[in-house]
């Protein structure tokens, strides 16, 4: 059987080279050709790139500091290296949820969603971030109190369900494409290990490393 090739280039060799590139050149070479762009967009490539990056980079991942920006930003957890965080543009605004893939310096902002309760005042919102190994889906769960709400994210689009469910019945959303492997998040209050929620006080702000360097 002939080996798979991309632009007459053995795919296995090419993947093994490109996986060793840092985020910037990797983003640039998406322009090289269509098949390259396709390869670089594949979840399996993204996942391998991140796993490799994490294995080789044992640095402090996130540094929290007071006073950076005016709005509190929160980390809701990390799964397989993806980090879920949110921030508000103003006190009354719905949180904007983002997923950060640090090996690609990529931040994915999830589509906004409507709040079935209208005004968010007096409503406490919490998010959970999980991975379903069965389906390889990432799930963002939104809990709103006093009424628990289910937020389903299916392939990049949010669906609100204004149903009341007991917590144990909550099923969740689905989010494919971005994969990763965080080993640790370091915050002022401690270390949050992969797969565990890190919930931080609102006084802490989050340094977003996708800023241009």
């Amino acid at each position, binding site marked *: 059987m002939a080996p798979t090739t991309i632009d007459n280039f053995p795919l296995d060799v090419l993947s093994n080279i490109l996986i060793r590139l840092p985020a910037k050149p990797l983003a640039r070479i998406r322009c*090289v050709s269509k098949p390259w762009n396709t390869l670089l967009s594949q979840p399996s490539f993204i996942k391998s790139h991140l796993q490799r990056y994490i294995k080789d980079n044992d640095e402090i991942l996130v540094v929290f500091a007071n006073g950076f920006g005016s709005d509190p930003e929160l980390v809701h957890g990390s799964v397989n290296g993806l980090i879920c965080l949110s921030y508000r543009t103003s006190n009354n605004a719905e949180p904007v949820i983002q997923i950060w893939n640090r090996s690609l310096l990529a931040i994915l902002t999830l589509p906004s969603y409507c709040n079935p309760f209208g005004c968010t005042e007096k409503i406490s919102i919490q998010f959970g971030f999980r991975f379903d190994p069965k389906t390889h889906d990432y799930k963002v769960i939104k809990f709103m109190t006093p009424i628990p709400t289910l937020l389903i994210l299916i392939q990049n689009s949010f669906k609100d369900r204004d149903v009341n469910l007991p917590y144990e019945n909550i099923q969740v959303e689905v989010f494919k494409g971005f994969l990763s492997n965080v080993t640790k998040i370091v915050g002022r209050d401690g270390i949050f290990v992969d797969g565990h929620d890190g919930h931080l006080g609102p006084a802490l702000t989050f340094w977003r490393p996708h800023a241009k360097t």
Partner: protein
Amino acid sequence: MSKKTLTLMSKDKQLFNIEEHLAVQSVTIRNMVKEDGASSVIPLPRVDSETLALVIEYLNRQQAPEEDEDYVKKFVDERGEIPTLLELAQAALDLDIKKLMDAACMKVADLIKDFTLEEVREALRIENDRTPEEEKAIRDEFQWAF
């Protein structure tokens, strides 16, 4: 008692002999030896003779384990031409010689990471199938990288 020798055959049908205890650094060959004793010639249909000669040179190295990392890096550095490195990476992949594969791929990645798009295409002989508009769309999307 003489050491057991294996014969490897390149894409262009050249034969290379190597002692079995050295050849089994290649996981692919090790598995073949385990399975059937690999008494016959082992064909390597993706590896040309020049590259196979390099691989054999690498497998025959007499390096203390603690110097091995430096050796493989130097070995690859000395063959810093991209076409050679690509062939070497492919051979190391087919033969499953991890350190050599890692070093060869890393070297290529290091070389191309500062290349312009044109230089990447030229070095890897890739045809540009993008229209200027398509290229611009990607540039816009990944503005921070350019």
